[in-house]
């Protein structure tokens, strides 16, 4: 009997562990270790953040779902990896610390035959002084709890506007090296929509602040689409939406400090600026969750298997090279650790070889560029691909990864919706192929323009609703869940 341990139960980890459990049957054991008791459909946190959904609408308890299919679930956080075992334990193992009520702080050794690191990101609010809802001055929509808090704060601002006060609303990225601009983009338009519905739009000055070189970069180096007889940059598409909704924007910005009602930021030209706000939702940068790794003799080998940003090294080409020499071959395909062949990393937890957007630095040496997104559809696809490989290794004795997928050969579909009513909301629906531009195959724009598109309308809004229900259905392992694509 083989044991597969999956660390993390987000989109990627949940996909990997549920498929593995389904394919391997009861002869093998799949164990999922996650500090959370609930699964969260994160894209709908945006609606929680404006009060249009509750936390309950976007989450469900994991234990009953895993119990139903016989998947071993431990509500605990992974602390360390021991890929060679130790002097007292010959098998590779991880150490975990329970977060489950009644067992908090209890530690355990968990041996494995195969390990998937799907721990997702640490929300690194500490990277910017004063950032975040816990000890800072800004709100967040990165978790459903954060989003609920954001909705309360937004409502307070709306009440002030109703009382006649003008409010400065600031939404965007809280550091020069953030990813997830799409979430900030979507939240901006939902906030604008709510304020309009409240009848106080004239009392709100809404500003979007971003580390993107141009709007529409989204951490993937922007995109081009065919529109109105032209091949148009996504910058035009995005700026048009901001103009239409009366939202100002600040780009190429690294927020370096947040005080009560004021952000300080540096722009790519090296100048320092300040911007006052009454309500601010700023996305934090991501880092690895801080897992440590140890050799058989107890020596710290964290730097050997993890990149400096805390993400796990996989089969990517990490050789430093200039932007002009980047190619899709740099990107991983198997997500297998090059040293320990039974360790894999999926979703946000794998270390990308480099950015996708062009690296930029201010004259002061401050990096101001989006980092690569690995959320949503790519996360799910990578999780399933790794699960297929491990299945082949366990059931058929494969010695090398049998399934491959690269972000240079993978597309993405995104919907950014504003409003929630079936006839009142509108959404931007985007598809791109591939996620990482391939300038060898598509020399002009790096992408296949037949499969890279963007349009705005009610249709996208309906798709967003459909995806919300579809992916919650899939994640709950209800009838036909294996047929729903990632």
């Amino acid at each position: 009997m083989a044991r597969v341990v999956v660390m993390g139960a987000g989109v990627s980890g949940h996909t990997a562990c549920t498929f593995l459990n389904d394919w391997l049957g009861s002869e093998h054991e799949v164990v999922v270790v996650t500090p959370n008791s609930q699964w969260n459909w994160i894209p709908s946190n945006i609606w929680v953040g404006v009060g249009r959904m509750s936390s309950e609408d976007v989450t469900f308890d994991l234990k009953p779902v895993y119990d139903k299919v016989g998947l071993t679930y431990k509500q605990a956080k992974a602390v360390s990896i021991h890929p060679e075992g130790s002097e007292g334990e010959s098998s590779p193992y991880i150490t975990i610390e329970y977060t489950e009520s009644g067992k908090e702080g209890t530690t355990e050794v968990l041996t494995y035959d195969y390990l998937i690191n799907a721990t997702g990101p640490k929300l690194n609010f500490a990277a910017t002084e004063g950032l975040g809802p816990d000890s800072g001055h800004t709100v967040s929509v990165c978790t459903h709890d954060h989003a609920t808090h954001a909705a309360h704060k937004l409502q307070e601002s709306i009440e002030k506007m109703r009382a006649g006060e003008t409010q400065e609303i600031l939404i965007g990225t809280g550091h020069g090296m953030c990813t997830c601009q799409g979430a900030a983009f979507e939240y901006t338009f939902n906030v604008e929509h709510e304020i309009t519905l409240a009848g106080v739009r004239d009392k709100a000055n809404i500003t979007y602040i971003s580390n993107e070189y141009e709007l529409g970069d989204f951490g993937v180096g922007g995109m081009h689409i065919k529109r109105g007889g032209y091949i148009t940059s996504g910058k035009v598409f995005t700026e048009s939406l901001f103009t239409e909704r009366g939202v100002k924007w600040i780009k190429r910005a690294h927020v370096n400090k947040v005080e009560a009602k004021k952000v300080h930021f540096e722009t790519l030209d090296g100048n320092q600026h300040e911007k006052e706000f009454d309500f601010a939702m700023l996305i934090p940068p991501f880092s690895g969750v801080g897992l440590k790794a140890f050799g058989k003799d107890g020596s710290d080998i964290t730097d050997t298997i993890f990149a400096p940003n805390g993400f796990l090294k996989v089969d990517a080409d990490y050789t430093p090279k200039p932007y002009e020499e980047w190619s899709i071959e740099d990107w991983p395909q198997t997500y297998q650790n090059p040293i320990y062949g039974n360790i894999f990393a999926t979703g946000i937890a794998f270390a990308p070889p480099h950015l996708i957007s062009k690296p930029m630095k201010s004259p002061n040496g401050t990096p101001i560029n989006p980092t690569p997104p690995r959320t949503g559809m790519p996360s799910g696809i990578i999780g399933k691909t790794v699960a297929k490989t491990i299945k082949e290794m366990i059931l058929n004795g494969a010695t090398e990864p049998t399934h491959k997928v690269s972000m240079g050969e993978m597309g993405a579909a995104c919907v950014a919706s504003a409003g929630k009513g079936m006839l009142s909301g509108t959404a931007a629906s985007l598809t791109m192929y591939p996620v990482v531009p391939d300038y060898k195959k598509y020399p002009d724009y790096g992408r296949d323009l037949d499969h890279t598109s963007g349009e705005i309308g009610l249709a996208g809004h309906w798709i967003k609703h459909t995806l919300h229900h579809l992916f919650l259905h899939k994640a709950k392992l209800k009838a036909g869940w294996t047929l729903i694509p990632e």
Partner: protein
Amino acid sequence: MKINPYDQNDYTPVPSKFTLFMRKCVIWQFIRFIAINLKMLVVVSKSH
């Protein structure tokens, strides 16, 4: 919104009344709903 000459938003395209109407026209959007779903399915199938 008011667009002032030489402001950042003075240089962007904005949708016409017809475009805004079509974005909310239920019949047209139902057709687009089918079309976008098909597009997304193609991208998803190319990615697996």
